[in-house]
């Protein structure tokens, strides 16, 4: 939850944390066993408390074996979730969606606020090549793998080649989506500073926009292939154009408003962030504005058009220290373990190929951009994580193609589950090996602490 950099924890401290974790699980286990029939709305309150405490403690304990805090949050959610101990049930996990909304808005705000123009300029060349290669090479290669193993995938049985190509392209889009929240979570915990950290943050935030455009393109291309009727329609692009421009315009306005507030008032930011996270996210959805992009733009404006960026980031860090733990732990509780058990061979094949092609694409783009050696070696490491954004895309695809949508979504959930667990570990390992994590908290105090599903 918090960044490291504090004093080393002793064995005694770890023992206390382990005992406290047992108490946490024990209390809720006892209560749910004593009153199994009482499922009240207060379950949400209990769940938030449990996930917050268990996630924090689990992350502290996993830190001893070098795992990122984020893995601890996820693990706490998985163990306490509906599929293992059933301390937090499905209904409660669904009820926690406002926390996810709040967390995603904070992540996007912080992500935008971290993108300084001068930093972007310094990595612009590498960013451009990486965006191009990652978005095309990985998409095509993973789509090819999907096509190759299609005969083993249940929901593609009986499809003709054209339809298979359409579905494979859609899977390719899914493969190029990343996880801003996982990236922010790891950077926050490690306080990493250096080329890998800077590149990862900038690339992943940018890739959010790219993926949205790619999805619209592939939906347009896949529709005639899958359904076998109709031509290519540019209507999707018109809608997308409006949405993107609208989101940026709204985001800039919000950013200017926030800058003015920070400058003139500058206090009670916790309440302001809560109001923005809860209130504006709903409003944005109502007026068909992409909230992620709008918050990203707002954060970007605050940092680059005013001197209030550090203040905003500090407030997000304070708020996020609680919200993000719950967010990632909820993501853990959301993981469909039985589904993963059923689809794991196909999911593993697809995830492994995605990771492999991501590494290759990273090497190629780094060479073309003449990136520094450290970036050539580890630049790909943050791109394996997937979470909420990928799941969101799978929902859109499932709605667009109801004939195979459910099967597609199930496989996506299984694949995202694997990437969600493995990705953060890889990224932290890479940052450690790149020597970017040996900083005291004061060096990079702005990122929000770890945490979930984007």
């Amino acid at each position, binding site marked *: 939850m918090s960044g490291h950099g504090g004093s080393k924890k002793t064995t005694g401290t770890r023992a206390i944390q382990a005992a406290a974790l047992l108490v946490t699980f024990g209390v809720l286990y006892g209560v749910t066993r004593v009153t199994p029939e009482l499922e009240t709305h207060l379950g949400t309150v209990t769940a938030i408390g449990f996930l*917050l405490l268990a996630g924090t403690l689990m992350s502290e304990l996993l830190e001893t074996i070098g795992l990122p805090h984020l893995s601890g949050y996820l693990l706490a959610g998985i163990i306490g979730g509906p599929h293992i101990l059933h301390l937090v049930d499905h209904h409660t996990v669904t009820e926690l969606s406002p926390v996810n909304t709040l967390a995603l808005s904070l992540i996007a705000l912080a992500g935008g606020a971290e993108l300084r123009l001068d930093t972007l300029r310094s990595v612009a060349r590498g960013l451009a090549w990486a965006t191009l290669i990652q978005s095309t090479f990985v998409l095509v290669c993973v789509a090819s793998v999907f096509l190759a193993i299609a005969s083993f995938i249940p929901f593609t049985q009986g499809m003709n080649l054209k339809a298979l190509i359409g579905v494979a392209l859609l899977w390719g889009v899914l493969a190029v989506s990343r996880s801003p929240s996982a990236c922010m979570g790891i950077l926050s915990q490690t306080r990493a500073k250096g080329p890998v950290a800077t590149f990862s943050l900038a690339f992943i935030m940018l890739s959010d926009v790219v993926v949205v455009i790619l999805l619209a393109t592939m939906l347009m291309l896949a529709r005639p292939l899958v359904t076998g009727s109709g031509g290519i329609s540019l209507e999707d692009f018109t809608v997308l154009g409006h949405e993107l421009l609208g989101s940026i315009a709204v985001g800039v306005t919000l950013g200017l408003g926030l800058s003015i507030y920070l400058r003139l008032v500058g206090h009670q930011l916790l309440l302001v962030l809560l*109001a923005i996270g809860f*209130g504006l996210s709903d409003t944005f959805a109502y007026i068909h504005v992409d909230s992620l992009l709008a918050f990203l733009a707002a954060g970007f404006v605050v940092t680059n058009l005013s001197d209030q960026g550090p203040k905003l980031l500090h407030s997000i860090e304070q708020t996020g220290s*609680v919200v993000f733990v719950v967010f990632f732990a909820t993501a853990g509780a959301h993981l469909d373990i039985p589904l993963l058990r059923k689809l794991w061979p196909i999911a593993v094949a697809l995830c492994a190929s995605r990771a492999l092609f991501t590494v290759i694409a990273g090497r190629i783009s780094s060479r073309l951009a003449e990136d520094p050696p450290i970036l050539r070696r580890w630049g790909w490491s943050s791109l394996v994580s997937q979470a909420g954004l990928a799941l969101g895309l799978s929902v859109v695809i499932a709605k667009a193609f109801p004939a195979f949508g459910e099967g597609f979504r199930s496989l996506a959930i299984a694949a995202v589950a694997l990437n969600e667990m493995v990705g953060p570990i890889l990224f932290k390992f890479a940052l450690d090996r790149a020597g970017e994590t040996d900083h005291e908290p004061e060096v990079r105090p702005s990122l929000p602490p770890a945490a979930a599903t984007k």
Partner: protein
Amino acid sequence: MNAIAFLLGLLVLSYLGSILVGGRTIRGFGLASGAEYLVLGFVLGPQVLSVVGHTLVEAFQPVVLVGVSWLGLVLGVSYLRVGERRVPLPHIALSITLSALVSACVSVTVFFGATYFSPLPRIEVIAFAATAGIICSETTRHSVRWIVERYAAKGPLADLAADTARASALFPALALAVVCAWLPGAALPAFSVLERVGVSLGLGTVLGGTAALLLGREFRRDESWGILLGTSLLGTGAATRLNLSPISTTFAMGLTLALVSRHSVDIKAMVTPTEKPVLLPVLLLAGAYVNVKLPMPLLVLVATAIVAKILARVFCGALLSITTRSVRGVGLEFGGSMLSCGALGLAIALSFAIRHPGVVADTVLLVASVGVLLGEWLGPGSLRRALARAGEIKPEVPGPQPTLPSEA
């Protein structure tokens, strides 16, 4: 009204509350108990304008419970200290005795009144009498602080008023645990009432001890928030699920932290400023819950409880004027000053209303609300007169405007 809009409204109230705590902008604005927000909630609620309808009030029940439980934690954490000063044990003992005495007087009066003049079944009569007594046994420390700071009062009587108000939280918090454990519908049917009370308080003590251990040797504010919020929410949820008293659980947790954590002063400094931002939305919601359309016998019982409270407080004041040197000569005024009540009384009434909904809960909430308004009217003035007569403030010259600083 839409839930998001209502939530935003509550956040705005929290914002106002945090400004009041900061005290930079609004000096001397608002009432000590925040009774105006209670009235606002009542006016906006289903009884008057219906801007906040029944459904919305129901939907925000978890928010209410979390809010009142957090207040319980704040009261527990800050129980042993007034500002930098530790509350002396004799003052704690005195305050508990006074609370128990007032509670007993009100409960007995209401019990006999309800037995003879209301159609309530016996179990409801006992529940009502006990809870009304508990609610009336609290004295809000905000009112005392308001006067003491506004008039720069200093002396043994001001200290005694502050200490007894602070220490008055223990009795109602514990007594509510007993009532909730006794009421029908509690989980753990194999347990006796005493054992259920033990579970209520034990849960808080275990979680408080766990939090104290986790906060460890070094105090890091950011980490501490996660631990405090996590343990308090877990305690609130667990106690509610067991149909016990969440306020008692979080109070026990706070008190444990205050007793065993080496960072108790830092924790108090951390959580105290959150009280007003939490309290104001809770007061507004409490106002929305208030139902005045009760049968006449119950309205008479409300009046009976309030009268009994006034008499009991005056009697306590008179008793103190005989037994305590600093109160000598100002007993009636000092007794009147203890009529001020607020956050805890309302929190208990709300908690009871959620635990045991029905006409008795509505009556209890009405007793608490009337008590807050009456206390606001009589309490601060009585204390000011008592302090003036005791020579601890200059009656004609008000001191600097109160800044309502965070009292940590």
